[in-house]
C-alpha cells in the first residue's frame, strides 16, 4: 500500500496520522470519501456519521461535522437528520458487523423507504474492533476468533451479498455499488456517484468497500493483498450493481442537488 503525500482538503490535518493499524483499509476508504467531498465541493454541507467498530476512530478524521453513534445505529441517526434537514448531505459510515448484523433492520428499511442518504459500508470479512470474530461477510473456511476451525457454511451460512440485497429491495432511484480499496480510483468514483445521487434527491445510495484488516487476518502485506484481490473477490463481485438511468447518462459530469 502506498501512502500518497497529498491529503484531501476535507481531511483534518491536526488528527493525522490517523489511528488505524498500518495497512488498514479504512484509511483508503476515507481518503476516497475525502477526495469525493473535495471534488464535489460539499465540505460545508456534509455530515459524516460513524458507527462503533473501527469506523469510530474516524470521529475527528475530517474537517466536516461528524457524529459518532452506536454500533449499528448510524443509519437511523442519519435518516432522522436528513429528514429533519434535507439540505444536509449525510454519510453513514459503518463496518460489515454494524451494517449487516446488528443494524440490518435499519439498512433494509432505509433502503426500502428510499431514504436519501449515502451509506458506505466497509467489508473486512470480520469484526475488527472487537478482535476478529466472525461477521456475516466471513468467507467459507475463513478462520476467525469465533470460527477457529474456519467458517462452516452448514452451520453459519455463506457470506452475505450486501449490495445485491440492497439492489433487490430498492427501486429505480437507488445507487448501489461494490468497490475495493485495491482500486482506490474506482472506489472514489463510486462514492462520488453515491453522493451525487443523494444530492439529486433520487434515492438511497450504497457503496460497499472491500477492505483490509491485516491485524486480525494476521497477514503480511503480500498476503493481505492476495486475500482482498483473490479470495474476497470470489464471493464479492466488484462493480456497480444498480445505477439510476439519469446518473448513468451524466457519467463523469458534475451533478448538483
Amino acid at each position, binding site marked *: 500500500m502506498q501512502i500518497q503525500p497529498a491529503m484531501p482538503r476535507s481531511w483534518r490535518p491536526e488528527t493525522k496520522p490517523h489511528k488505524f493499524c498500518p495497512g488498514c483499509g479504512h484509511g483508503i476508504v476515507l481518503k476516497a470519501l475525502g477526495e469525493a467531498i473535495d471534488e464535489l465541493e460539499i465540505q460545508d454541507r456534509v455530515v459524516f456519521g460513524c458507527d462503533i467498530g473501527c469506523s469510530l476512530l474516524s470521529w475527528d478524521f475530517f474537517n466536516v461535522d461528524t457524529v*459518532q453513534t452506536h454500533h449499528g445505529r448510524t443509519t437511523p441517526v442519519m435518516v*432522522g437528520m436528513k429528514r429533519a434537514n434535507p439540505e444536509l448531505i449525510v454519510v453513514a459510515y459503518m463496518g460489515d458487523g454494524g451494517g449487516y448484523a446488528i443494524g440490518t433492520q435499519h439498512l433494509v*428499511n432505509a433502503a426500502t423507504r428510499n431514504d436519501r442518504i449515502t451509506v458506505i459500508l466497509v467489508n473486512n470479512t470480520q469484526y475488527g474492533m472487537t478482535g476478529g470474530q466472525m461477521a456475516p461477510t466471513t468467507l467459507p473456511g475463513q478462520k476467525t476468533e469465533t470460527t477457529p476451525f474456519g467458517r462452516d457454511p452448514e452451520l453459519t451460512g455463506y457470506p452475505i451479498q450486501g449490495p445485491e440485497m440492497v439492489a433487490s429491495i430498492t427501486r429505480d432511484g437507488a445507487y448501489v455499488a461494490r468497490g475495493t480499496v485495491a482500486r482506490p480510483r474506482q472506489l472514489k468514483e463510486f462514492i462520488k456517484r453515491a453522493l451525487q445521487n443523494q444530492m439529486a434527491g433520487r434515492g438511497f445510495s450504497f457503496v460497499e468497500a472491500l477492505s483490509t484488516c491485516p491485524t486480525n487476518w494476521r497477514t503480511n502485506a503480500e498476503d493481505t493483498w492476495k486475500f482482498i484481490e483473490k479470495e474476497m473477490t470470489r464471493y464479492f463481485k466488484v462493480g456497480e450493481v444498480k445505477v439510476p438511468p439519469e446518473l448513468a447518462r451524466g457519467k463523469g459530469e458534475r451533478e448538483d442537488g
Partner: protein
Amino acid sequence: MPTKPKPVEGEKKVFMTGNEVVAWAAAAAGAECMYGYPITPQNEIMHYWTRLAPKFGLIFLQTEDELSAGFTMLGGVLAGRKSFTATAGPGNTLMQEPLSMAEMMRLPAVVVIQQRGGPSTGQVVYSQQEVTLTSLGGNGEGLRVVYSTSSHQDLYDYTIKAFNTAWRYRFPTFLLGDGYQGKMREPVVMYDPEVRGVELVPAEPYVGRPGTPGVDRPPAHLRNAYSIEEELYEAVMELVREYEKVAPEIVEHEAFGVDGARVVAVAHGVVFRAVKGVVRELRQQGVPVGYFRPITLRPFPADALRRVAATGVRLLVVESAYGQLARLVKEALSGLPAEVHGLYKPGVLVGQGEIATRIKTLVQGG
C-alpha cells in the same frame, strides 16, 4: 417565508384523550419531528400527530423499531429540530439504548412513556412499572429528567415543559404517563404557550451550521466513545456536575397536609389522584394525614421529602408497581430514621378504599 399557523391559538377548554393532548402539546411546544414505532397504549399520539402534520408542517416517520425511532429522533435533534418519540413497555426497554447516547452527548431528546404492565409483554393497559427503567435505565448514571404526570392538564403543561427543559439544560427528558392517562378522556385547557407567558426555548443545530468546517469555524466532532478510563471519567464527572448544578432548578413536587401529619402518603401518576382524594377526605374528618407527590422522579425531590420525613412521620408509598417508587424514596431518605411502608399493586390501580384503610391503620400505630 410565510409563518406557519400556530397549532393552538389563544386558550381553549377541550375534552379529549391524553394521547391526543400530548400530540397537541408537542406541536404547541414547537416540536417539528416525531419518529415512532407502534405500541399500545401510545399509538394515538402518532395517529394525531400524523393528522396535524400537513396543516402545521410537521415531520413524521414510522420507523422499523424503537431503536430506530430513538436514533432517528437523535438525528432530528442533531439537525436542530425539536424531536420526540413515544413508547411503552418493551419499547421503553429498547429506547434505553438511544437515550443512553443522548445522555452521554447531552442531546435534548424528548420521550413520552405511556406505561403498560410488565415484565415482558405484560399487559397493554396500565402500570407504574417503568419508573426504574425510565429514571435509571441505560448503562450510565441516569442523568435525565423524568416528569410524572397525573392528569390531562399535566400532560399538556409538562409536554411543553419537557421540550423547554430538554433544550435549556440539554439532558434527555421523559414524560412518564401511563395507559390510563393516554386512553381516558377528561377536560383540559390547551393554550398557546405565549399567551401564558411561557417562553419556548429555541432549538439549535449541532451540525450543519453556516460556514465550512475547518475553514470558517471548527468542525462539530461529537463522540460518545473514549479511549481510556480517565478520559471517560472526566467526561462523566463533567456531566454529573452539570446535572447536579441544574437539578435544583428542575426538581418539582407537590405536598398537602404534611405539617402535623402522623402519616404521609407518597404517590405519583394516576395513583396520586386516588391518594389525593383519600387524604383530603380523611383530613376533613380530622385524621392527621398528608400527601407528598414527586412530580420529577429524576431528579428526585429528596430535600423536600427529607424535610417531611424529619418530623418523624410514617410514610406510606402507594404505587402500581412492586416498590419502584419506594426505592427512590428510601434512597432519598437514607440516613434518616424514617419508617417507610408500602402499598404495592404491580400493574393495577390501587383502590381508594384500600388506601384509606391502610392510612388509618398506620395512623393508629398499626
